[in-house]
């Protein structure tokens, strides 16, 4: 090709190819820089003696109090880790059956026209900004549920968890639907040919075949739930207390950063602690996503042989 093109053309061609390669490197640079700079701001917790007077990594996992603004600040991560776990668990308990059920329905049973209507609907649900959902949960849903169940505390882990569930239904649904749809038609034909009913085929043949993908979808949803900020910041009540009671006001890791970073003194132990919390959040979601994607790759390898 380059033989036919003139020499000038060839130079331009190379320049463009390099510019494009550079753009692709921005994605790599992005993820590396995120890690490095959150780490950089979290570092003093590990090495700065003055900061360590107030906050240490060992201290984060001792005690049960998160009281950063007091005469004797205490930075135990446990209440906010527990808060994150509670809210995430509720979100998944709600979202997984709904999303997986709907994915199974649209991949296996829905007529084509309905299938074409479900996808845009889920996309629109996914497009609702989380601050809007947070507002809905804060103003309307909390009041409604409080009246319905007679809650003592209006904003609690259940309220936030349900709203959070709505934000993770779309990603779980989409990936699940992909996984189930990619199971080869021959699997279904074989099962139906042996006399299985459509439901038996779906639940005993198709779903097990798609299982790595379905697990990947659930993990992806879990990563999203742990990392989501605005919904939990607005709907969970924001009291960082260590309790297993789901109807108490609660606070997650993300909400802690969002609520406190705005008022923190730059360079203080509290400031660096919030970055350390962010680093932890980054690490946890990074690992979850990695496992999720490798599971999905495994599904593709299982269904279509080693190469994707």
């Amino acid at each position: 090709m380059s033989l036919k093109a003139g020499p000038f053309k060839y130079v331009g061609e190379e320049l463009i190819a390099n510019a494009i390669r550079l753009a692709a490197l921005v994605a790599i640079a992005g993820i590396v820089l995120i890690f490095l700079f959150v780490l950089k701001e979290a570092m003093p917790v590990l090495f700065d003696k003055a900061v360590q007077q107030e906050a240490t990594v060992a201290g984060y996992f001792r005690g049960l109090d998160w009281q950063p603004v007091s005469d004797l600040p205490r930075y135990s991560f446990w209440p906010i880790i527990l808060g994150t776990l509670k809210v995430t668990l509720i979100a998944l308990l709600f979202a997984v059956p709904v999303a997986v059920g709907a994915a199974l329905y649209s991949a296996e049973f829905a007529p084509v026209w309905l299938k074409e209507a479900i996808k845009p609907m889920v996309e629109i649900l996914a497009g609702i900004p989380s601050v809007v959902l947070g507002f809905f949960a804060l103003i309307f849903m909390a009041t409604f549920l409080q009246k319905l169940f007679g809650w003592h505390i209006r904003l609690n882990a259940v309220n936030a968890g349900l709203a959070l569930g709505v934000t993770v239904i779309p990603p779980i649904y989409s990936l699940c639907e992909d996984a189930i749809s990619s199971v080869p038609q021959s699997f279904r034909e074989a099962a139906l040919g042996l006399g299985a009913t459509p439901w038996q085929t779906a639940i005993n043949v198709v779903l097990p075949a798609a299982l790595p993908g379905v697990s990947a979808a659930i993990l992806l949803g879990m990563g999203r739930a742990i990392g989501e900020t605005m919904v939990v910041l607005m709907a969970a009540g924001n009291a960082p207390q260590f309790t297993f009671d789901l109807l108490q006001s609660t606070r997650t890791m993300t909400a802690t950063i969002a609520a406190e970073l705005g008022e923190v003194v730059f360079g203080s132990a509290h400031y660096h602690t919030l970055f350390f919390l962010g680093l932890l959040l980054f690490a946890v979601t990074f690992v979850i996503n990695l496992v999720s994607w490798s599971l999905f790759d495994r599904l593709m390898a299982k269904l279509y042989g080693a190469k994707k």
Partner: protein
Amino acid sequence: MKRAASINRISDRINIGLTGLATVLIFAILVVILGTLVAGGHKVITWEFLTQPPREGMTKGGIFPAIFGMVFSVMIMLIAVLPVGVSAAIYLHEYAKPGHWLTKLVRGAVNNLAGVPSIVFGLFGLGFFINFLGRGLDASLGKETLFGQPCILWAALTLALLNLPMIIVATEEALRAVPQTERAGALALGATKWQTIWHVVLPQALPGILTGTVLVISRGAGEVAPIMFTGAAYFLPTLPKVPTDQFMTLGYHIFVMSTQSPDIEATVPIAMGATLVLLSLTIALNMVAVVIRTRTRKALRRGR
């Protein structure tokens, strides 16, 4: 035997019905959320509400500065994310060798970037753009504080990085839909690789890229966590003029008016109006994306 078959048929109906119910539930959730927010907010929205600044300690007046700031920041975000994202996708689909380590690395980075929590992007924006780049620029320019503070530029760049995976994935999907024979045809006629991409591949991928752009605008307009510490302001008496000014924006305004206000009774209605405006905007954008996508799919089917 016959009885077993009829029991099977009934249990099939019930089970399939349950999965159908899950689908209906998603639809119901969407309808309830939209219905409630429209019912709550539609009375607040007037021409004045959309075109006036807040008054009397934000308890009255409109949301114009928040709309203005949102548009301003989304535009800068687009200028940053579009060329980079589209180019990266072109690299992945047209230039990269499929099994090469660099290709895998770029793909891995895109996937992981998509999973980074939005609040971590906010931390990154503060640590990198403001504390490192901004202060570095100020020091080398000998300025007091110009870049080393939260502003539209840094918030928009943080949003751009957040949205990079979305535009890459959408563009790559669009490129994948262009038949390989089109490329072969152009190359066989003597076009260079870039000529083929520019004159043959990209025009056909344009609707897909447009879809991605629309979705990125929608997401950029609604994200709050990444901009809280990188540029968004509680209240500003004047509109921002340059990218180094702070800005008010719709999403943050909703958060402030519904949780941070000293007079919640007075500000919640304003937050309701702002919510409905933001919701209408994002839904309209998402519908545009759905329409473009459906049309493209139909056109593709006709073409084959």
